[in-house]
C-alpha cells in the first residue's frame, strides 16, 4: 500500500510552496493533498494530477501569495518595489504622455517582432533535418548569351551516374515535381477528381533515408521501390479517403494507376520539399529523350547525402571529370555546362536556384533587419524625447529624493525601472497586435507565420529587445534627470543644463525626419515604378482574351493532338468567338522555355526563348510582323518566326536580311519565315529576350480565345461545355489575359504595399516624436509667448516662430535623406529593365509631404499655445 501511494506532480507542489504565504502554507497544502487523494480514487491518477496542477495555478492570487519584501530587509527589494509603485502611479497620472509613449514604442516593437518572425522562419527552412549538414543538391550552371545562367534542374540520367561515380556519396534521391496535377481517387465505388495545386512528385525510397520525413504506416524501404506505388501524407489521406490508414487504396495520375503503400507525416511549414503525394519514379517509362544529358527541366532535382566524415571538397574536385565524361562538347570544343553542389542550408536563400516555395533572399532578410532597426531606433528616440521633456515636471521629486539621501545610482535605477515598465507594457501590447496582424499578413504575403512566444528564439529575441530598448531609451533620460542639482531642482531651475539636452533632442528629431523621409522617398519611387510598369505598352493585345489550360498527358501523343485540333475547331464555331489559337503560353507569361541554337555559318551558340504557337497566334495577339510572312498553321516543326531582338543578336542589322536564312535548333535546320516586332515575354522587370515562334502541337498547353465583348459570361459557358466534351475527365478553368498580365507584378505590388505600410508606421512614430517635441517647446516657452503677445505679437507670427524651428530640422533631415534615399532606390530599380527616372521632382515631393505631415501634427498645439491668453502664462510667476 505504502510504496504505490500516488503522489502529485512534485514541481507544481514546489511551485506552490515557493509562492504561498508561509502562514497559510501548511493547511492549504493539506487541503490540496486531501483533494488529490480523493480525486485519484474518483478520476484516476492522470485526472487527479491535472486537477492538482489546476488548483495550484488557481491558488496563485494576491491573497495567498507571500509578500514580495519577504522577511529581511538586507537587500533593496523594498526600494525596487517602491520604484515600481511610483513608476506605475506616474504613468497612470500622466495619461497623454503614457499613451504617446507606449503607443509609439508598440508600433516600433510590433514591426520589429513581425520582421523578426519573417526572418526567423526564413532561416529555419529545412534546418530540422538530422543529417542537414551532409545533404546537398546538385544544380546546373550553364553558359548564357552573356554570363552564366543557373537552374536547379539537372539532366535525368545524372542521379544514377552520380551514385555510380562518387564513392563518398551515401545516398542519392531524384525528385521530379509536377505542379497543378489532376488526381483521380477511387474510394469504394466512388470516383472523385481533385485538382492539386501543390502537385505530385516522382521520387525514390532513398528520399526517406536522406530527409527527416517519418513514415507513419507502411515501410520506408518499400514505399517507392516498385512501379505504380505511392506514398501519401496523412493530410491528403484524410482528404481522399476519410481515414489515415490508406494503405492499399488506389489513385490515378496521368492515366496511370498507383497503389498507396505507405502513409507519411505531413510536411512542416518550414520546408522547401512540400510533398503531399510521392509516386515511384521507377513507374515513368524512360524515353530516349529523357536519357539525354543535354535537356534539363527545372522540375527534375537531385539531392544527395554525403558519407559521414567526408569533406564536400573531395566531391567537388571530381566534378570537372564527371562533366567531361557525360556532357557533349559543342562545335567550339567546350562544354557549356557544369554542376554545382548546393548545401541544403542555402536552398531557401539562394536566388539563383528555384524552389517549390517563395524564397526569402538574403538581401530581403538584410533589408528587413535594417527596416526593423530603423523603426525601433525611431521609437526609442520618441521615448527619449518624451522622457526628457517630461523631466521638467519631475524635478521637484528628484530634488526631494536627493535631499533625503538618494544616490545618483538609485535615481538612475528608478527612472530605468520606469522605462522598463513602459517597455514591457508595449511589448505585451505588441504581442497582441502581432497576433492580430498575422491574420492579415499571412494570407496576403503567403506566409505561414505563427506567434509562439515560448519558442526558444522568440524568448531570446524578446528578452534582448526589452533589454536593448530599455537601455537605449531609458538610460539617457535617467542619467540626465538624476544629474539635477538638488537646490536648483527644488526651485525648478533646470534650464542651466537644459540647453545641452535640447540640442540632443533636436539631433534625435533630425534623425527621425531622416528615417521618415527615407521611407517616403522609397514609397514615392516604388509607387511611380508600379504605375509606370502597368501603363507600359507590352507589344500585344490584351483585351477580351481568355486563356484556357489544356490538359497534357505524357502518354498517347497522337490522340492528344487530334483532341486539341477538334477543341479548337469546335470553339471557333461558337457564336461571339472571334479568334482561337493553340499555344504554349500567352506572349507574356511567368513560364518560359529556353533553348540554345546555332547559325549554320558560325559555331557560336545563342540562347533564346521558345514559344510553341499555331498560325492564329500572331493575329489573335496582334503581334506586328516586320518582315517576311506569318507563322504557318502546321502541327509539327517546319519553319519559324523570330523577333527583332534575335535577328539583331545573330548579327543582322536589318530584320529583312534574316528571312530565308536557317537556324539550327533541336538538331534541325529551320528556315526563318518572318520577323515579329519585339514584345515583352515576361514582366517589365525583365528585358526583352530573343524569341522563336514555332509550330509544335505537342507543346500546346493553352488555348487562347478572343471574345466579342458582348455577353462574355454566356460565351465562356459555351466554351466550357465544348471543353468538357473533349476532356470529360478533367476540370475546366480559365482566366482573363489582362488579369494574368497584372499577376505578373504580384510580387512587386506586394513589395510596394509592404514598403507603404512601413513608411506609414515610420511616419506615425516620427509624428509622435514631433508631437512630444512641440509639447515640450510650448511648455518651455509659455512665458516667452506671453511676453511676446503682451508686446503685440500676433498668433500667426508666434506659430511661424515654431514652424521655423521645426522647418529647419526637417530641412536638415532632408539633406541627409535625399542622397542616401536616392542611392538606395537606384539600387532597387536596377532590378527592373524598364524603370522610371529618379528626378528632382521626387525629392521635392517627399519634402512637401514631410512638411505637410509635420505641420498638420504640430499645427494644433502651436496654435493653441500661441492663442493662449498671456495673463494666464505670466500670472503664475
Amino acid at each position, binding site marked *: 500500500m505504502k510504496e504505490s501511494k500516488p503522489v502529485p506532480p512534485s514541481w507544481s507542489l514546489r511551485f506552490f510552496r515557493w509562492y504561498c504565504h508561509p502562514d*497559510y502554507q*501548511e*493547511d*492549504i*497544502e*493539506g*487541503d*490540496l*493533498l*486531501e*483533494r488529490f*487523494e480523493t480525486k485519484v480514487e474518483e478520476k484516476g491518477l492522470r485526472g487527479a494530477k491535472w486537477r492538482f496542477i*489546476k*488548483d495550484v*495555478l*488557481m*491558488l*496563485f*492570487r494576491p*491573497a*495567498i501569495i507571500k509578500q514580495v519584501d519577504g522577511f529581511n530587509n538586507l537587500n533593496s527589494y523594498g526600494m525596487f518595489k517602491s520604484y515600481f509603485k511610483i513608476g506605475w502611479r506616474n504613468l497612470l497620472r500622466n495619461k497623454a504622455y503614457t499613451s504617446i509613449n507606449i503607443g509609439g514604442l508598440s508600433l516600433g516593437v510590433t514591426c520589429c517582432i513581425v520582421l523578426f518572425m519573417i526572418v526567423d522562419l526564413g532561416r529555419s527552412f529545412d534546418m530540422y533535418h538530422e543529417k542537414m549538414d551532409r545533404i546537398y543538391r546538385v544544380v546546373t550552371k550553364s553558359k548564357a548569351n552573356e554570363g552564366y545562367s543557373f537552374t536547379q534542374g539537372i539532366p535525368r540520367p545524372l542521379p544514377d551516374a552520380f551514385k555510380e561515380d562518387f564513392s563518398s556519396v551515401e545516398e542519392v534521391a531524384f525528385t521530379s515535381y509536377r505542379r497543378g496535377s489532376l488526381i483521380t481517387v477511387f474510394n469504394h465505388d466512388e470516383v472523385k477528381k481533385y485538382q492539386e495545386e501543390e502537385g505530385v512528385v516522382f521520387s525514390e525510397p532513398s528520399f526517406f533515408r536522406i530527409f527527416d520525413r517519418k513514415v507513419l504506416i507502411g515501410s520506408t524501404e518499400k514505399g517507392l521501390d516498385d512501379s505504380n506505388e505511392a506514398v501519401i501524407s496523412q493530410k491528403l489521406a484524410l482528404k481522399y479517403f476519410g481515414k489515415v490508414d490508406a494503405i492499399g487504396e488506389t489513385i490515378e495520375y496521368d492515366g496511370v494507376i498507383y497503389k498507396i503503400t505507405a502513409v507519411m507525416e505531413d510536411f512542416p511549414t518550414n520546408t522547401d520539399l512540400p510533398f503531399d503525394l510521392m509516386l515511384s519514379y521507377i513507374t515513368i517509362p524512360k524515353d530516349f529523350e529523357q536519357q539525354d544529358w543535354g535537356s534539363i527541366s527545372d522540375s527534375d532535382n537531385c539531392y544527395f547525402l554525403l558519407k559521414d566524415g567526408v569533406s564536400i571538397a573531395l566531391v567537388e574536385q571530381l566534378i570537372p571529370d564527371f562533366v567531361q565524361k557525360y556532357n557533349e562538347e559543342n562545335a567550339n570544343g567546350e562544354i557549356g555546362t557544369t554542376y554545382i553542389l548546393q548545401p541544403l542550408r542555402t536552398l531557401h536563400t539562394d536566388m539563383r536556384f528555384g524552389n517549390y516555395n517563395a524564397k526569402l533572399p538574403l538581401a530581403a532578410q538584410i533589408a528587413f533587419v535594417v527596416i526593423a532597426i530603423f523603426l525601433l531606433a525611431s521609437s526609442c528616440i520618441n521615448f527619449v524625447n518624451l522622457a526628457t521633456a517630461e523631466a521638467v515636471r519631475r524635478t521637484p521629486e528628484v530634488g526631494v529624493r536627493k535631499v533625503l539621501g538618494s544616490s545618483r545610482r538609485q535615481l538612475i535605477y528608478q527612472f530605468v525601472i520606469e522605462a522598463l515598465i513602459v517597455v514591457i507594457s508595449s511589448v505585451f501590447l505588441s504581442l497582441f497586435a502581432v497576433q492580430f496582424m498575422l491574420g492579415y499578413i499571412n494570407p496576403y504575403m503567403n506566409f505561414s507565420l505563427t506567434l509562439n512566444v515560448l519558442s526558444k528564439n522568440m524568448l531570446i529575441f524578446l528578452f534582448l529587445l526589452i533589454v536593448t530598448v530599455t537601455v537605449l531609451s531609458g538610460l539617457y533620460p535617467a542619467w540626465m534627470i538624476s544629474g539635477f542639482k538638488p537646490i536648483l531642482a527644488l526651485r525648478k531651475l533646470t534650464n542651466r543644463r537644459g540647453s545641452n539636452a535640447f540640442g540632443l533632442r533636436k539631433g534625435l528629431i533630425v534623425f527621425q525626419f531622416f528615417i521618415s523621409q527615407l521611407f517616403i522617398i522609397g514609397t514615392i519611387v516604388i509607387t511611380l515604378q508600379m504605375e509606370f510598369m502597368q501603363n507600359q505598352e507590352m507589344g500585344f493585345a490584351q483585351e477580351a482574351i481568355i486563356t484556357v489550360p489544356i490538359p497534357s498527358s505524357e502518354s498517347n501523343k497522337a490522340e492528344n493532338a487530334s483532341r486539341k485540333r477538334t477543341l479548337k475547331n469546335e470553339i471557333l464555331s461558337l457564336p461571339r468567338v472571334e479568334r482561337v489559337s493553340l499555344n504554349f503560353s500567352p506572349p507574356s507569361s511567368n513560364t518560359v522555355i529556353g533553348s540554345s541554337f546555332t547559325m549554320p555559318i558560325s559555331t557560336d551558340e545563342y540562347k533564346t526563348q521558345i514559344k510553341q504557337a499555331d498560325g492564329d497566334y500572331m493575329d489573335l495577339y496582334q503581334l506586328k510582323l516586320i518582315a517576311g510572312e506569318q507563322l504557318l498553321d502546321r502541327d509539327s516543326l517546319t519553319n519559324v518566326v523570330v523577333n527583332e531582338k534575335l535577328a539583331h543578336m545573330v548579327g543582322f542589322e536589318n530584320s529583312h536580311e534574316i528571312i530565308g536564312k536557317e537556324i539550327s535548333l533541336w538538331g534541325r535546320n529551320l528556315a526563318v519565315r518572318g520577323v515579329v516586332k519585339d514584345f515583352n515575354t515576361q514582366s517589365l522587370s525583365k528585358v526583352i529576350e530573343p524569341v522563336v515562334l514555332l509550330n509544335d502541337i505537342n507543346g500546346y498547353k493553352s488555348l487562347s480565345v478572343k471574345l466579342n465583348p458582348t455577353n462574355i459570361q454566356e460565351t465562356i459557358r459555351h466554351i466550357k461545355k465544348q471543353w468538357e466534351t473533349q476532356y470529360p475527365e478533367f476540370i475546366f478553368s480559365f482566366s482573363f489575359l489582362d488579369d494574368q498580365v497584372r499577376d505578373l507584378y504580384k510580387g512587386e505590388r506586394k513589395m510596394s504595399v509592404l514598403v507603404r505600410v512601413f513608411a506609414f508606421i515610420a511616419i506615425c512614430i516620427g509624428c509622435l516624436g514631433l508631437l512630444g517635441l512641440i509639447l515640450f517647446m510650448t511648455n518651455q516657452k509659455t512665458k516667452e509667448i506671453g511676453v511676446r503677445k503682451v508686446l503685440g505679437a500676433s498668433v500667426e507670427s508666434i506659430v511661424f516662430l515654431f514652424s521655423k524651428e521645426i522647418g529647419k530640422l526637417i530641412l536638415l533631415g532632408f539633406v541627409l535623406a535625399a542622397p542616401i534615399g536616392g542611392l538606395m532606390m537606384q539600387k532597387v530599380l536596377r532590378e527592373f529593365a524598364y524603370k522610371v527616372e529618379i528626378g528632382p521632382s521626387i525629392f521635392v515631393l517627399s519634402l512637401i509631404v514631410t512638411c505637410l505631415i509635420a505641420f498638420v501634427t504640430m499645427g494644433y498645439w502651436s496654435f493653441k499655445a500661441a492663442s493662449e491668453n498671456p495673463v494666464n502664462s505670466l500670472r503664475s510667476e
Partner: protein
Amino acid sequence: MSKHHLGEFEEIVMLTVAILHDEGYGIAIIEEMESRLGRKVSIGALQTVLRRLENKGYLSSQFGEATKIRGGKRKRFFSITSYGKKILAEVKDQRLELWKAIPEFVLNN
C-alpha cells in the same frame, strides 16, 4: 444599514462554515457547498475568501491535530466570530425586509 458589504460568495461561505460548526476546514467546506448547492468551487477561490473574511474579523481559525492522511498536514478549522454572526444576521434581515417590501401580487403570478 450596515457599512460592511458582504458579497454573495462570501455570504455562502460564512453560512457553510456556520453549518459545519467547528468542523469546517477547506475541503469540508468545498464538499458541503458542492453537495448542498451543486456549485463547483476551486480551492483558490475559497481560500482567498476565507482569508479575507478572517482579516475582516468575521471568521476565526485554529489548527487541528495532525493525522496520517493529507501528507501529515494539519487542518485549519474555521468558525464564525460573534461579530461575524452579527453581520450574517444583518444581511438576513436586509434580505427579509426586501422580500417583505415586494407587493404581494408581483410574486403571486
